């Protein structure tokens, strides 16, 4: 899922300083699962925005709503139901949702309520770790399912760097050296020979280095 975290409240209060009515819009997708922008977080942020405004001697009205997703056109169109009732939208979806609202509602003012972090998973309750960089050219079949792009600090493709010590990454002892983990896992599963394959020089254009990426599926387009 996409991992996000609410922005500091004072930042958001400042964003909406000119608004008297704010639509706080959550998303029931990834940000709901990582407790950053779901229904509960919408309720909390709306309350904090009202408190922040009141502290500055203003009155702020909020509409609280949560959409199934904010990354599909049909859900964004549903914002019409609140037309004329808000001066600005604070989207608690990931950056995709904010962009979609901006793309599809040219006259609406939209602000981000969260900082979008990474694609990851829940390591334990309240802890999420990055697992995938979305680089567009997956090599997990060669690395035992562990990603050297997202989980190696240097995104190395041919084994660990000299900073790997006792299975720990040199950037932080809490970060395992993923190449050590790849080696251990391939050895354990009898696929150590995969380590001998030399990865060719990588074309990073699929990772966004060639500009914004676009996926077109001819079998789905109409």
């Amino acid at each position: 899922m996409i991992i996000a975290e609410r922005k500091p409240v004072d930042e958001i209060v400042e964003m909406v300083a000119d608004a008297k009515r704010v639509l706080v819009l959550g998303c029931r997708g990834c940000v709901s699962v990582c407790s950053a922008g779901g229904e509960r977080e919408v309720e909390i942020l709306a309350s904090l925005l009202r408190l922040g405004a009141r502290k500055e001697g203003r009155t702020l009205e909020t509409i609280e709503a949560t959409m199934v997703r904010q990354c599909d056109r049909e859900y964004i169109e549903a914002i019409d139901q609140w037309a004329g009732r808000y001066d600005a939208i604070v989207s608690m979806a990931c950056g995709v949702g904010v962009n979609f609202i901006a793309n599809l509602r040219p006259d609406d003012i939209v602000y981000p309520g969260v900082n979008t972090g990474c694609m990851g998973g829940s390591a334990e309750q309240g802890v999420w770790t990055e697992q995938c960089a979305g680089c567009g050219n997956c090599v997990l079949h060669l690395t035992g399912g562990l990603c050297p792009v997202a989980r190696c600090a240097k995104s190395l493709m041919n084994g660990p760097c000299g900073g790997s010590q006792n299975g720990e990454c040199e950037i932080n002892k809490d970060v395992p050296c993923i190449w050590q983990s790849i080696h251990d896992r391939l050895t354990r599963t009898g696929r150590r020979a995969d380590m001998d394959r030399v990865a060719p020089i990588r074309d990073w254009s699929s990772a966004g280095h060639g500009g914004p990426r676009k996926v077109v599926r001819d079998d789905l387009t109409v």
Partner: protein
Amino acid sequence: MSFTPDIQIFCCHYTSQQAIAEGAAGLKEDGLPAGVAINRLPCSGKLRVSTLLKAFEDGADGVCVVGCPADKCHNVSGSRRAAHRVLAVKKALAELGVEEERIEMFHLERGFHPEFIDAAVTMNERVMGFGPSPFRDEEKTAIKTPKKKVAVKKPARKGGKKK
């Protein structure tokens, strides 16, 4: 500046059992500050962040959460959950430039009556020092109806059930 702070206490059934048994008159006699309202919950883990924030929206100058000792919660981890939610509100208050000490978590043994009163007195004195909440909507609080307080009923057996 002299004022009577509006302190909202959210407490679990167990930590407040003996205090509630005192009844309103008894609590007053024991020194529970005048502006303190007791909101009783089955477990402090039931508390939501939005409930704590709403207390401030409704005019509270300070909020106090009382739950079981962190390692002896009747519901295993309820008071630890409550403590985390209090921390979340503290962080938000700090981000808004408001004294984060306006909300506090207290872990008390069940049935310990003087300590319960002490927690209320501590919060009252602390908030007296801070002054009225900067979130107070004077117009609204001026016409605000008295808060619904938890009915203080005398249970059949006085005192908390010990583990």
